């Protein structure tokens, strides 16, 4: 098997004679294409149904099977955003936004130098350090929940958004270091050396050589950190109360109390998911490389 893996992938696009080989058009292309569409559709259908229902009135939403052609309305959203009901999701959305954005910024500030040190200017025992970071990614959050809770209680940080920010930073930092390292590894070493020869300082090298190559990677990393922080439920639920509760916590409560009003619930779910959907959509190019921590491209 090892002999198989030794073949350089570069050779793949050329025949032994060196002519570029015509890319094989699979005969089964259209059929499999259709299959791909069908499978893709199956995966999206529940979400589409949720979005559609969120724009229906409660009467139309309650029909079974769901009515496709019912008139659209913003009623569900109006209810969720508290017009008439007095519920107000804005503080929780704002909390989520603060926790996600601030923790992502801190993660970037810490992870970027670390990843740079671990990939371009490797510190000694770099693989040990990397695997230390990776091992923390694998920790079950719940295992540390109680000490964190007691610490928060003792220090008065319970129901404080800053506690979540610190915890989300720690939660995403290992992933970010690994992701950034994978993106930084794409910086051509020759260019770095050339910059060094020309006497460019660290900042100059970073700005002129490293930044252009890794900026898309940084963007993807931040989007993924944003997604993880926005989605987090366990810590938020345990450590926040009325003041610092995040959107998923608010949503859990909203669904429990308004569960019978389907259109409202769908509107709430979609409104809370929307930032993450947008982030995921924007990051999709680099998402796989990032989430596999660079193991595949």
């Amino acid at each position, binding site marked *: 098997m090892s002999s*198989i893996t030794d073949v350089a992938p570069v050779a*793949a696009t050329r025949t032994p004679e060196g002519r570029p080989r015509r890319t094989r058009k699979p005969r089964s*292309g259209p059929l499999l*294409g259709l299959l791909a569409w069908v499978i893709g559709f199956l995966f999206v259908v529940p979400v589409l149904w949720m979005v559609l229902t969120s724009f229906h009135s409660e009467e139309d939403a309650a029909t079974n099977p769901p009515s496709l052609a019912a008139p659209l309305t913003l009623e569900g959203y109006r209810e969720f955003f508290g017009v008439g009901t007095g519920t107000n999701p804005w503080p929780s959305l704002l909390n989520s936004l603060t926790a996600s954005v601030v923790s992502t910024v801190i993660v970037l500030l810490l992870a970027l130098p670390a990843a740079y040190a671990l990939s371009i*200017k490797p510190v000694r025992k770099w693989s040990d350090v990397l695997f230390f970071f990776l091992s923390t990614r694998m920790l*079950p959050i719940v295992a540390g929940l*109680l000490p964190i809770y007691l610490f928060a209680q003792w220090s008065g940080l319970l129901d404080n958004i800053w506690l979540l920010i610190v915890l989300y930073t720690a939660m995403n930092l290992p992933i970010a270091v690994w992701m950034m390292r994978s993106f930084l590894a794409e910086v051509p070493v020759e260019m770095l050396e050339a910059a060094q020869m020309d006497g460019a300082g660290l900042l100059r090298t970073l700005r002129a050589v490293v930044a252009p190559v890794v900026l898309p990677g940084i963007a993807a990393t931040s989007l993924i950190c944003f997604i993880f922080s926005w989605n987090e439920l366990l810590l938020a639920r345990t450590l926040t109360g009325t003041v610092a509760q995040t959107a998923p916590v608010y949503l859990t409560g909203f669904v429990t109390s308004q569960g019978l009003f*389907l259109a409202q619930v769908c509107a709430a779910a979609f409104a809370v998911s929307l930032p993450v959907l947008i982030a*995921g959509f924007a990051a999709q190019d680099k998402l796989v490389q990032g989430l596999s921590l660079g193991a595949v491209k």
Partner: protein
Amino acid sequence: MTQTTLPPTEKTQPVSAPRGSISDRSRAERKLGWLLAGPAFVVMLLVTAYPIVQAVYYSLFNYRLTDPDNRSFEGLGNYWVILTDGVWWQAILVTVIITVVTVAVELVLGFALALVMAKALSSIRPVVRAAILIPYAVITVVSAFAWQFAFRIDTGFVNSWFAWLPGVSDTTDWFGGQASSLFVICLAEIWKTTPFISLLLLAGLAQVPDVLQEAAKVDGATWWQRMWRVTIPNMKAAIMVALLFRTLDAFRIFDSIFIMTAGANNTESVSFLAYRQTISRVEIGLGSAVSVLLFLSVVLIAFLFIKGFKVDLAQARGER
């Protein structure tokens, strides 16, 4: 095992630089390296190591938060209580079932999906990719509620849609029993994470050298033989990464169970048990012991994967 990768130190040192300056510079660079990596390292050490050490400490005491004066040293007594209790083994069983079922199904389904996407016309691939990523991006709370809604006896449409299946009728209570509850939980997990696996494997498929496929075809290998002898061995890194990440994530499952069943009908996972003991029942000693055991299980799984299967993330990358 990581030593088999390109030693990155060699890459950074200019070949033509004079001898004396190398050691000076490399020493300075090493210092800079630690300076750059240090803050992240310290943060992780503080925020992750502290709670674990603290949990180990708490786990040695008989300690209830509601009764802090009666704190007494128990030694390993809490562990004995847990390991001789059926609740722990039930939680382990549930967690293992969920992990094995979801990871196995996701791997097979994700691989099939990856094959389909790889063969599909390249023009539609980005659209399909964006579409199947949606479940992965939907927040877990929402997907858990959605699946619960679909299967619930009073609101769900699954019973009426699938009434033609044997065993499904209007009165099927999916959340009324352990097996059917776990089925729905697994289904929700599979729906949510198969897209991620399939995209990972699709990226792995792209790493299989075409020339090998051609050679195997010329030699008369069947589709099945090519799959097992050429395709899969060559995308081992992607498969292993998918397996490792998903296994660890599945083993820590909490959100879905919390929302769909709240642990009713013996659907408690280990994470959920630890949560219930510590946060709901404020049994600090016992709960910490559960947490430590969960932590050790996760470490064991990761260790087995990384050592046993020789998953080398750093090397997987170097091979590309």
